[in-house]
């Protein structure tokens, strides 16, 4: 089977620190992949590399056979990779619905003059954006906040807003950085159902999450990182029993797992 997203020998150093050290993995279409590891193991750096926020020092990333090397974040979004942030990146001056519509930016084509003079193309595009924002907000249960400011949302709801916004670009790969933070157990369970549905619709999902119960119950495949290196990979059951992963989490002296 051809990999959908292929990460090969990806590397990033900050001064003397190697934050991501030759990590490779593949993500199939519709697969849900968990990226786990202790704090500082390089998970968020990995997401920043994939989304183009950081430039990699080595290795390659390709999506559907197309290389993403050296692309700006907006071009990567345009190529079909969307993400949410651990430290939220909400646009506070826009309404909740407009926040979602910004996520559609790379799919909109109307010109400045077209928008200002309200050509039929621009008007239709704008109406479609609002319709889409409403359906995506309904998907995460925030539709009644469409015209409200994001300040009326709770912390957990803002994470869901970021999820809706990421979906607005119709991505083929979605990356979620700690989506459960600030959610109750009930809300987290609903989110897991939603993420599974996204996977079934063919979107590849990468999830970083500390809530192990959430990860183990959700993902098909796990990549475990420690000190920037991939220390294990496999299905949730095998990872749970993996010596190197247990050692990394519990801080025991590392066994020769590989």
């Amino acid at each position, binding site marked *: 089977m051809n990999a959908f997203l292929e990460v090969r020998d990806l590397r990033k150093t900050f001064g003397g620190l190697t934050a991501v050290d030759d990590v490779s993995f593949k993500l199939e279409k519709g697969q849900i992949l968990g990226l786990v590891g202790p704090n500082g193991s390089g998970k968020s750096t990995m997401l920043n590399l994939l*989304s*183009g*926020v950081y430039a990699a020092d080595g290795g390659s990333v390709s999506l559907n056979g197309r290389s993403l090397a050296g692309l*700006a*974040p*907006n071009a*990567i*979004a*345009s190529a079909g990779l*969307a*993400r949410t*942030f651990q430290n939220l*990146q*909400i*646009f*506070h*001056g*826009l309404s909740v*619905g*407009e926040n979602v*519509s*910004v*996520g*559609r*930016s*790379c*799919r*909109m084509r*109307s010109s*400045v003059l077209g*928008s*200002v*003079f*309200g050509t039929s193309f*621009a008007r239709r*595009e*704008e109406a479609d*954006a*609002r*319709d889409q*924002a*409403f*359906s995506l907000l*309904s998907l995460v249960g925030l*539709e009644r906040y*469409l*015209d409200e400011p994001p300040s009326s949302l709770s912390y957990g709801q803002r994470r869901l807003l970021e999820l809706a*916004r*990421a979906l*607005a*670009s119709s991505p083929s790969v979605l990356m979620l950085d700690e989506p459960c933070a600030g959610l109750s157990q009930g809300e987290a369970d609903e989110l897991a159902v939603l993420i599974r549905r996204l996977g079934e619709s063919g979107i590849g999902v990468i999830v970083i999450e500390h809530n192990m119960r959430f990860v183990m119950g959700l993902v098909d495949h796990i990549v475990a990182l420690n000190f920037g290196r991939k220390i294990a990979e496999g299905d949730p059951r095998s990872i749970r029993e993996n010596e190197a992963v247990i050692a990394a989490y519990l801080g025991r002296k590392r066994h020769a797992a590989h």
Partner: protein
Amino acid sequence: MVPPRKSARSRLLRLIAPVGLLAILIALPLALKNNYQLGIAHQALIFIILAVGYDVLLGFTGLLSFGHIGLFAIGAYTSALLVMSTGAPFLIGLMGAAVLTGFVGFLISIPALRIKGHYLTLLTLALGEVIRLVLRSMEWLTHGSSGLSGIPRPEILGFSFRQALPLYYLLLLFAVLTVVFVWRLKASRFGRAFMAIRDAEIGAEVCGVNTSKMKMMAFAISAIIAGVAGSLYAHTMRFISPEFFSLGLTIILLAMVLVGGRGTILGPAIGAALLIALPEVLRFVKEYYLLVFGIAIWLCVILLPDGLAGLGRRLLKRVGLAA
């Protein structure tokens, strides 16, 4: 699924302030006693255009440029020189001013893509001063510090705006067009992208906003509006000199947007009108004018962090009208 329409009542409420303001501006000449007061009103309208355009950069996109008055100056000189030396009609001068300032705004945006925050402000401050110095030293073209005088009043298709009253309505038309343009822009994908860059630049980029292109557009649009305002200024005042376009005017422009409320459209417009009218109203305090002026701005910044527009919004909410 179909989203609910914004309620008719809330849309109506949003129109009250702009329509009321427009009605006042249309009727204003009736209340003005002489051509001198009408002249103040001319300046207020020109600065409304300039401040609303400046807000695209400062209020929407969050880019603090201190070079905006330089663009205003280029617009004024371009239009005046085109009309005076080639005998071109006013509208050609105006368009020439808009094209040239738009181009200069685009040029300024290139380094602005790499430089951020205070450094960008310093860079634009230097550019604004350079523009003023160049205008002063190119004597063969601009008559240096003695300035250009005898600039003709606008004439469009044979209709002359030499008289103060028709000129007032011509300027009002341009001000309304600018406000409508910026208002439509704000509601479009471009306005959303500008504000997304202001609120969370990395978030905007990852959402697919081409931040470089959008910043360039904000610079260029804001510059084109400054060029139009500059052209109108030259043909209204009939005299321009480099000293008028000083750093002090940059600060006043900034104050107009901040006092009015940045990121709103009516705010900077009201701020501009206020800051032009204030010196006239404060004439009785004579030499203490700057002191009173300073204290007024200081109070505004402390008491009205969101400017006058923010105050209006809060009052509406207080009486339970705002949606």
